[in-house]
Protein backbone atom coordinates (compact mmCIF):
# COMPACT_ATOMS: atom_id res chain seq x y z
CA UNK A 1 0.00 0.00 0.00
CA UNK A 2 2.85 2.38 0.87
CA UNK A 3 4.68 2.07 -2.44
CA UNK A 4 1.66 2.15 -4.75
CA UNK A 5 0.04 5.04 -2.90
CA UNK A 6 -3.33 3.33 -3.13
CA UNK A 7 -5.84 3.60 -0.33
CA UNK A 8 -7.62 0.41 0.63
CA UNK A 9 -10.12 0.62 3.43
CA UNK A 10 -13.22 -1.42 4.20
CA UNK A 11 -16.46 0.17 3.02
CA UNK A 12 -17.67 0.18 6.63
CA UNK A 13 -15.28 3.06 7.42
CA UNK A 14 -16.92 5.26 4.79
CA UNK A 15 -20.44 4.35 5.81
CA UNK A 16 -19.74 5.10 9.49
CA UNK A 17 -18.18 8.48 8.62
CA UNK A 18 -21.14 9.20 6.32
CA UNK A 19 -23.55 8.45 9.16
CA UNK A 20 -21.59 10.62 11.62
CA UNK A 21 -21.60 13.52 9.15
CA UNK A 22 -25.39 13.20 8.82
CA UNK A 23 -25.76 13.16 12.60
CA UNK A 24 -23.48 16.17 13.17
CA UNK A 25 -25.24 18.16 10.42
CA UNK A 26 -28.63 17.34 11.89
CA UNK A 27 -27.43 18.38 15.34
CA UNK A 28 -26.07 21.74 14.15
CA UNK A 29 -29.36 22.32 12.28
CA UNK A 30 -31.31 21.54 15.44
CA UNK A 31 -29.20 24.00 17.45
CA UNK A 32 -30.43 26.70 15.07
CA UNK A 33 -33.97 25.30 14.81
CA UNK A 34 -34.60 25.36 18.55
CA UNK A 35 -32.78 28.69 19.00
CA UNK A 36 -30.36 27.51 21.69
CA UNK A 37 -29.74 30.18 24.33
CA UNK A 38 -27.49 31.98 25.07
CA UNK A 39 -26.29 32.84 21.57
CA UNK A 40 -22.68 32.16 22.60
CA UNK A 41 -23.52 28.55 23.42
CA UNK A 42 -25.18 28.13 20.01
CA UNK A 43 -22.10 29.60 18.29
CA UNK A 44 -19.82 27.31 20.26
CA UNK A 45 -21.86 24.21 19.41
CA UNK A 46 -22.16 25.07 15.71
CA UNK A 47 -18.40 25.74 15.46
CA UNK A 48 -17.58 22.54 17.34
CA UNK A 49 -19.85 20.43 15.09
CA UNK A 50 -18.37 22.08 11.98
CA UNK A 51 -14.82 21.34 13.12
CA UNK A 52 -15.73 17.72 13.89
CA UNK A 53 -17.29 17.35 10.43
CA UNK A 54 -14.25 18.93 8.79
CA UNK A 55 -11.98 16.60 10.74
CA UNK A 56 -13.93 13.53 9.64
CA UNK A 57 -13.97 14.56 5.98
CA UNK A 58 -10.27 15.41 5.89
CA UNK A 59 -9.14 12.38 7.93
CA UNK A 60 -11.19 9.62 6.34
CA UNK A 61 -12.72 10.74 3.03
CA UNK A 62 -9.53 12.56 1.99
CA UNK A 63 -7.38 9.84 3.64
CA UNK A 64 -5.13 12.37 5.38
CA UNK A 65 -5.03 10.12 8.44
CA UNK A 66 -3.30 7.48 6.37
CA UNK A 67 -0.79 9.75 4.64
CA UNK A 68 2.82 10.32 5.69
CA UNK A 69 3.37 12.98 8.30
CA UNK A 70 5.36 15.25 5.94
CA UNK A 71 2.33 15.55 3.63
CA UNK A 72 -0.07 15.91 6.57
CA UNK A 73 1.87 18.87 7.98
CA UNK A 74 2.20 20.49 4.56
CA UNK A 75 -1.58 20.28 4.20
CA UNK A 76 -2.74 21.20 7.68
CA UNK A 77 -0.32 23.93 8.83
CA UNK A 78 -0.67 26.62 6.09
CA UNK A 79 -4.47 27.01 6.53
CA UNK A 80 -3.84 28.02 10.16
CA UNK A 81 -2.66 31.37 8.75
CA UNK A 82 -6.27 31.98 7.75
CA UNK A 83 -7.14 32.14 11.44
CA UNK A 84 -4.67 35.02 11.86
CA UNK A 85 -6.27 36.82 8.90
CA UNK A 86 -9.72 36.28 10.38
CA UNK A 87 -8.62 37.64 13.76
CA UNK A 88 -7.15 40.78 12.17
CA UNK A 89 -10.13 41.58 9.95
CA UNK A 90 -12.60 40.93 12.79
CA UNK A 91 -10.80 43.55 14.89
CA UNK A 92 -10.89 45.84 11.87
CA UNK A 93 -14.62 45.17 11.38
CA UNK A 94 -15.35 46.22 14.96
CA UNK A 95 -13.34 49.40 14.44
CA UNK A 96 -15.17 50.26 11.21
CA UNK A 97 -18.47 49.71 13.03
CA UNK A 98 -17.45 52.25 15.71
CA UNK A 99 -16.33 54.80 13.12
CA UNK A 100 -19.63 54.42 11.25
CA UNK A 101 -21.61 54.75 14.46
CA UNK A 102 -19.75 57.95 15.37
CA UNK A 103 -19.90 59.66 11.99
CA UNK A 104 -23.12 58.35 10.42
CA UNK A 105 -25.16 57.62 13.52
CA UNK A 106 -27.11 54.38 13.30
Amino acid at each position, binding site marked *: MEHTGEQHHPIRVYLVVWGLLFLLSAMSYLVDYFGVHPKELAWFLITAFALLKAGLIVSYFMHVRFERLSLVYAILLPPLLILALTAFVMAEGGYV*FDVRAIFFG*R
Partner: protein
Amino acid sequence: MAQQIESPEDRARTWPRWLRDLVADWASDQQTFKVNWGKAMMWIFLISDMFVFGSFLSAYAAARLSATLPWPDPAKVFALHIGEAEVPLLLIAIMTFVLISSSGTMAIAVKYGYERNRAKAALFLTLTALLGLTFVGMQAFEWTKLIHEGFRPWTNPMGAPQFGSSFFMITGFHGLHVTAGVIYLATVASQVLRGAYEKTGYQRVEIAGLYWHFVDLVWVFIFAFFYLF
Protein backbone atom coordinates in the same frame (compact mmCIF):
# COMPACT_ATOMS: atom_id res chain seq x y z
CA MET B 1 43.31 8.20 18.32
CA ALA B 2 40.45 8.02 15.87
CA GLN B 3 37.93 9.36 18.29
CA GLN B 4 34.44 8.38 17.45
CA ILE B 5 32.67 11.51 16.19
CA GLU B 6 28.93 11.42 16.55
CA SER B 7 27.39 12.00 13.14
CA PRO B 8 23.97 13.63 12.67
CA GLU B 9 22.67 10.24 11.62
CA ASP B 10 23.85 8.71 14.90
CA ARG B 11 22.17 11.44 16.87
CA ALA B 12 19.00 11.02 14.89
CA ARG B 13 18.85 7.39 15.91
CA THR B 14 17.85 8.45 19.40
CA TRP B 15 14.92 10.49 18.13
CA PRO B 16 11.40 9.15 18.14
CA ARG B 17 10.45 7.48 14.89
CA TRP B 18 7.94 10.11 13.74
CA LEU B 19 10.53 12.88 14.12
CA ARG B 20 13.18 10.90 12.24
CA ASP B 21 10.75 10.25 9.38
CA LEU B 22 9.70 13.89 9.24
CA VAL B 23 13.25 15.27 9.16
CA ALA B 24 14.41 12.63 6.67
CA ASP B 25 11.53 13.41 4.29
CA TRP B 26 12.19 17.15 4.33
CA ALA B 27 16.01 16.81 4.16
CA SER B 28 17.97 17.61 0.99
CA ASP B 29 18.20 15.26 -1.99
CA GLN B 30 14.91 13.76 -1.08
CA GLN B 31 11.53 13.44 -2.60
CA THR B 32 9.42 15.06 0.09
CA PHE B 33 5.99 13.83 -0.87
CA LYS B 34 5.96 10.10 -1.44
CA VAL B 35 2.71 10.21 -3.36
CA ASN B 36 2.17 10.41 -7.09
CA TRP B 37 2.66 13.88 -8.51
CA GLY B 38 -0.98 14.32 -9.46
CA LYS B 39 -2.03 13.93 -5.85
CA ALA B 40 0.63 16.35 -4.60
CA MET B 41 -0.45 18.91 -7.22
CA MET B 42 -4.12 18.53 -6.30
CA TRP B 43 -3.26 19.13 -2.66
CA ILE B 44 -1.30 22.26 -3.54
CA PHE B 45 -4.26 23.52 -5.55
CA LEU B 46 -6.63 22.73 -2.68
CA ILE B 47 -4.44 24.60 -0.19
CA SER B 48 -4.54 27.67 -2.43
CA ASP B 49 -8.31 27.24 -2.72
CA MET B 50 -8.55 27.05 1.07
CA PHE B 51 -7.01 30.50 1.17
CA VAL B 52 -9.53 31.80 -1.36
CA PHE B 53 -12.50 30.59 0.68
CA GLY B 54 -10.77 31.52 3.94
CA SER B 55 -10.43 35.07 2.65
CA PHE B 56 -14.08 35.14 1.59
CA LEU B 57 -15.27 33.98 4.98
CA SER B 58 -12.96 36.46 6.72
CA ALA B 59 -14.28 39.26 4.52
CA TYR B 60 -17.80 38.16 5.41
CA ALA B 61 -16.94 38.32 9.13
CA ALA B 62 -15.52 41.83 8.71
CA ALA B 63 -18.54 42.98 6.65
CA ARG B 64 -20.99 41.57 9.16
CA LEU B 65 -19.20 43.07 12.17
CA SER B 66 -18.96 46.49 10.54
CA ALA B 67 -22.60 46.63 9.41
CA THR B 68 -24.56 49.26 11.33
CA LEU B 69 -27.96 48.03 10.12
CA PRO B 70 -29.14 44.74 11.65
CA TRP B 71 -27.89 41.64 9.82
CA PRO B 72 -30.78 39.73 8.16
CA ASP B 73 -31.57 36.55 10.11
CA PRO B 74 -30.64 33.62 7.80
CA ALA B 75 -33.26 31.44 9.51
CA LYS B 76 -35.94 33.85 8.20
CA VAL B 77 -34.32 34.70 4.86
CA PHE B 78 -33.97 31.05 3.89
CA ALA B 79 -37.23 29.79 5.37
CA LEU B 80 -39.56 27.72 3.21
CA HIS B 81 -43.33 27.68 3.54
CA ILE B 82 -44.76 24.19 3.83
CA GLY B 83 -48.51 24.66 3.90
CA GLU B 84 -49.14 26.96 6.87
CA ALA B 85 -45.84 26.38 8.62
CA GLU B 86 -42.64 28.28 8.00
CA VAL B 87 -39.68 25.93 8.28
CA PRO B 88 -36.36 27.77 8.76
CA LEU B 89 -33.42 26.84 6.53
CA LEU B 90 -35.20 23.74 5.18
CA LEU B 91 -33.72 23.98 1.68
CA ILE B 92 -30.24 24.63 3.07
CA ALA B 93 -30.49 21.58 5.34
CA ILE B 94 -31.53 19.41 2.37
CA MET B 95 -28.66 20.83 0.29
CA THR B 96 -26.26 19.99 3.11
CA PHE B 97 -27.48 16.39 3.28
CA VAL B 98 -27.29 16.07 -0.51
CA LEU B 99 -23.69 17.26 -0.57
CA ILE B 100 -22.67 15.01 2.33
CA SER B 101 -24.25 12.06 0.56
CA SER B 102 -22.34 12.91 -2.59
CA SER B 103 -19.14 12.82 -0.53
CA GLY B 104 -20.11 9.38 0.74
CA THR B 105 -20.75 8.04 -2.77
CA MET B 106 -17.46 9.60 -3.90
CA ALA B 107 -15.48 7.81 -1.19
CA ILE B 108 -17.10 4.55 -2.26
CA ALA B 109 -16.27 5.27 -5.92
CA VAL B 110 -12.58 5.69 -4.98
CA LYS B 111 -12.70 2.38 -3.12
CA TYR B 112 -14.20 0.52 -6.11
CA GLY B 113 -11.68 2.20 -8.40
CA TYR B 114 -8.76 0.78 -6.44
CA GLU B 115 -10.49 -2.59 -6.44
CA ARG B 116 -10.59 -2.28 -10.26
CA ASN B 117 -14.32 -2.70 -10.24
CA ARG B 118 -14.91 -0.39 -13.19
CA ALA B 119 -18.67 -0.70 -13.42
CA LYS B 120 -19.26 0.11 -9.77
CA ALA B 121 -16.66 2.89 -9.70
CA ALA B 122 -18.31 4.57 -12.70
CA LEU B 123 -21.76 4.04 -11.19
CA PHE B 124 -20.83 5.76 -7.93
CA LEU B 125 -18.98 8.53 -9.77
CA THR B 126 -22.10 9.18 -11.83
CA LEU B 127 -24.23 9.11 -8.67
CA THR B 128 -21.88 11.66 -7.09
CA ALA B 129 -22.12 13.92 -10.14
CA LEU B 130 -25.94 13.65 -10.12
CA LEU B 131 -26.09 14.59 -6.44
CA GLY B 132 -23.79 17.53 -7.22
CA LEU B 133 -26.15 18.55 -10.02
CA THR B 134 -29.08 18.35 -7.60
CA PHE B 135 -27.19 20.63 -5.23
CA VAL B 136 -26.52 23.21 -7.95
CA GLY B 137 -30.17 23.02 -9.02
CA MET B 138 -31.37 23.76 -5.50
CA GLN B 139 -28.91 26.61 -5.24
CA ALA B 140 -30.23 28.08 -8.50
CA PHE B 141 -33.75 27.82 -7.03
CA GLU B 142 -32.58 29.59 -3.87
CA TRP B 143 -30.91 32.41 -5.81
CA THR B 144 -34.02 32.86 -7.98
CA LYS B 145 -36.25 33.03 -4.92
CA LEU B 146 -34.04 35.59 -3.20
CA ILE B 147 -33.64 37.74 -6.30
CA HIS B 148 -37.45 37.80 -6.69
CA GLU B 149 -37.71 38.95 -3.08
CA GLY B 150 -35.45 41.91 -3.86
CA PHE B 151 -32.09 40.64 -2.67
CA ARG B 152 -29.19 42.20 -4.56
CA PRO B 153 -25.44 42.36 -3.88
CA TRP B 154 -25.90 46.00 -2.83
CA THR B 155 -29.29 46.00 -1.12
CA ASN B 156 -31.99 43.83 0.37
CA PRO B 157 -35.34 44.40 2.09
CA MET B 158 -34.34 42.77 5.39
CA GLY B 159 -31.45 44.83 6.76
CA ALA B 160 -27.74 45.31 6.23
CA PRO B 161 -26.94 45.70 2.50
CA GLN B 162 -23.64 43.81 3.03
CA PHE B 163 -25.66 40.60 3.38
CA GLY B 164 -26.26 40.37 -0.37
CA SER B 165 -22.64 40.87 -1.40
CA SER B 166 -21.43 38.24 1.06
CA PHE B 167 -24.17 35.78 0.12
CA PHE B 168 -23.86 36.00 -3.66
CA MET B 169 -20.05 36.05 -3.56
CA ILE B 170 -19.58 33.08 -1.23
CA THR B 171 -22.36 30.78 -2.43
CA GLY B 172 -21.71 31.79 -6.04
CA PHE B 173 -18.05 30.86 -5.85
CA HIS B 174 -18.88 27.62 -4.09
CA GLY B 175 -21.58 26.80 -6.65
CA LEU B 176 -19.03 27.40 -9.39
CA HIS B 177 -16.78 24.83 -7.73
CA VAL B 178 -19.62 22.31 -7.54
CA THR B 179 -20.45 22.90 -11.22
CA ALA B 180 -16.82 22.44 -12.23
CA GLY B 181 -16.70 19.34 -10.04
CA VAL B 182 -19.74 17.81 -11.77
CA ILE B 183 -18.02 18.23 -15.15
CA TYR B 184 -14.76 16.86 -13.71
CA LEU B 185 -16.51 13.81 -12.23
CA ALA B 186 -18.45 13.12 -15.43
CA THR B 187 -15.15 13.14 -17.33
CA VAL B 188 -13.48 10.79 -14.84
CA ALA B 189 -16.53 8.49 -14.88
CA SER B 190 -16.36 8.14 -18.65
CA GLN B 191 -12.60 7.53 -18.45
CA VAL B 192 -13.19 4.76 -15.91
CA LEU B 193 -15.80 3.15 -18.15
CA ARG B 194 -13.45 3.32 -21.13
CA GLY B 195 -10.79 1.58 -19.04
CA ALA B 196 -8.38 4.49 -19.44
CA TYR B 197 -6.90 3.91 -15.98
CA GLU B 198 -6.27 0.19 -16.32
CA LYS B 199 -2.57 0.78 -17.03
CA THR B 200 -1.89 3.98 -15.06
CA GLY B 201 -3.79 2.93 -11.94
CA TYR B 202 -6.80 4.43 -10.28
CA GLN B 203 -5.14 7.31 -8.42
CA ARG B 204 -6.95 9.68 -10.80
CA VAL B 205 -10.23 8.72 -9.20
CA GLU B 206 -8.84 9.42 -5.74
CA ILE B 207 -7.50 12.80 -6.92
CA ALA B 208 -10.92 13.74 -8.31
CA GLY B 209 -12.29 12.61 -4.96
CA LEU B 210 -9.96 14.98 -3.11
CA TYR B 211 -11.39 17.86 -5.10
CA TRP B 212 -14.96 16.77 -4.46
CA HIS B 213 -14.48 16.24 -0.72
CA PHE B 214 -12.88 19.67 -0.56
CA VAL B 215 -16.01 21.23 -2.06
CA ASP B 216 -18.01 19.44 0.65
CA LEU B 217 -15.53 20.66 3.27
CA VAL B 218 -15.98 24.28 2.21
CA TRP B 219 -19.75 23.85 2.43
CA VAL B 220 -19.37 22.65 6.05
CA PHE B 221 -17.93 26.06 6.94
CA ILE B 222 -20.36 28.06 4.79
CA PHE B 223 -23.28 26.17 6.35
CA ALA B 224 -21.97 26.80 9.88
CA PHE B 225 -20.77 30.38 9.64
CA PHE B 226 -23.03 31.92 7.03
CA TYR B 227 -26.33 30.10 7.53
CA LEU B 228 -26.34 29.07 11.17
CA PHE B 229 -24.52 31.97 12.90
